[in-house]
């Protein structure tokens, strides 16, 4: 029955491609989460009136974030080819997609982290300072816990964008569902392959959204 409806779908290939997509998305979410929080913290802490107020550092990081956030992802991949070759040694395969995915998503997420941190009541930071907290303590015990719902909902949005990015990276040889849909689906005119790949991508997106929403609500005690 299924074979008749979807004559061209090779399920083994499909599972393999799903795995590749999940792998690229998973690794880049983790890296983006860490890098984005670090960048976001530096952006926040060096901004005017904050603990590390430092205009030059803030301007440089801000410019870096804005530039990489603005370049369309498909162009960013192309621009980063020499860098990717140098770091990963190849342009083919899931790992080759990672540098572009992370560099494309981390600045985007860093801005969301910064916005989340700015929403923390300044008085709470002042109170922590008045108790003799070190910057380290303020970061780990005040800034991150107090902005956690925003950090989680931000990474959810970023993760969904990343799923889309992996599909684009797939087109230029990174593997995964995007690659399958483009090569086997589009170029060979097998619409059923494209359809199934799309459905799987949608499922991945829905699952990410559900997990993200669950944690955002659970963690928010405001």
């Amino acid at each position, binding site marked *: 029955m299924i074979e008749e409806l979807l004559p061209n779908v090779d399920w083994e290939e499909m599972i393999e491609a799903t795995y590749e997509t999940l792998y690229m998305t998973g690794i880049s979410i983790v890296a983006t989460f860490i890098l984005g929080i670090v960048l976001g913290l530096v952006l926040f802490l060096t901004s005017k009136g904050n603990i590390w107020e430092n205009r030059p550092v803030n301007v440089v990081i801000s410019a870096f974030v804005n530039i990489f956030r603005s370049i369309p992802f498909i162009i960013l991949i192309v621009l980063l080819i020499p860098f990717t070759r140098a770091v990963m040694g190849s342009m083919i395969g899931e790992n080759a997609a990672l540098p572009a995915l992370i560099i494309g998503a981390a600045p985007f997420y860093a801005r969301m982290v910064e916005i989340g941190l700015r929403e923390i*009541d300044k*008085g*709470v930071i*002042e*109170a*922590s*300072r*008045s*108790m*003799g*907290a*070190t910057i380290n*303590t303020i970061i780990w*015990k*005040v800034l991150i*816990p*107090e902005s*956690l719902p925003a950090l989680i909902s931000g990474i959810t949005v970023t993760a969904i964008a990343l799923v889309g990015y992996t599909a684009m990276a797939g087109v230029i040889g990174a593997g995964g569902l995007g690659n399958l849909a483009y090569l086997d689906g589009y170029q060979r005119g097998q619409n059923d392959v494209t359809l199934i790949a799309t459905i799987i991508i949608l499922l991945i997106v829905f699952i990410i959204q559900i997990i993200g929403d669950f944690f955002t609500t659970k*963690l928010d*005690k*405001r």
Partner: protein
Amino acid sequence: MITLSQISKSFRTGLAQGGLIKAVDNVSMKIDQGEIFGIIGYSGAGKSTLIRMLNGLETPTDGSVMVAGREISKIKGTELRKARQEISMIFQHFNLLWSRTVSDNIAFPLEIAGVSKTEAKKRVNELIKLVGLEGREDAYPSQLSGGQKQRVGIARALANNPKVLLCDEATSALDPQTTDSILELLVDINKRLGLTIVLITHEMHVIRKICHRVAVMESGQVVEQGPVLDVFRNPAQPITKRFVQQVTEPEETKETIEHLLERFPEGRVIQLTFVGESTESPLITQLVRSFKLDVNIVQGRISQTQHGSYGTLFIHIDGAQAEMDQAIQYIKEQQVGVEVISHD
């Protein structure tokens, strides 16, 4: 315990002209161990900046700040952080961590000080009892009322056994009844722990209720300071008079007096000020018995302060001129402040 010597603090305004605003201007004061010291002023008077210089959240442009034997205005880094554990602070908007329960909020300064988990737990339980929050240990701040939040703030501030407690408009966001219960808690803590308390406020009610001494601030300067009763008795500056009126003269008094002055152009309206023991002597009875006068009580109020009571009474007297003069002389002899309010 606290000595401020000629401290000033200027802020650069955002304008291109590079204008400077003097938030605090050459302030000196001494606050003793175990004292409750109040600083009153309208918003923008510089009191917030002043109190923040006591724990180094702001550094003075000039002058020195000594608290508990440390020169707060000089020290930095670890030493300043250590000092801050002995100078805690509570805030108008409580500034609790919403992500932590009541217990965990109170435990936060203990974590900062590196107290072991078991010891911290014991201390948190003591503090919860001290501020009367039994049963609310596992609640989150969003589930508490304003008064309960401030109790958490106080417990948190007391966690590391500080020597000084700074109160930044600690009751300004609370309703009158809750304000009183928080003020009572502060007095209780002051008596029980011998803690020095410095508070800033714009409400004379707070000063009257708990402070031993008061400083009045206006545009960055301390224009008047002294024991609360003295300031209530003889407010020297116009701004101080206005603050004292907040608690002694209800709004309607002025209208009542004007009305009386109109109705009895003959007599005199007199404001009597009683301080301490004189509030208990039967002055009016004496007045009516000894002089041929009609005495009419217009308005009166007695306020309790930490060092005795303070009261004002407005009366209208009518009779022969000489009789009235003698009566006023008599009142003066009773150590009661007299002020004849005239037509104007």
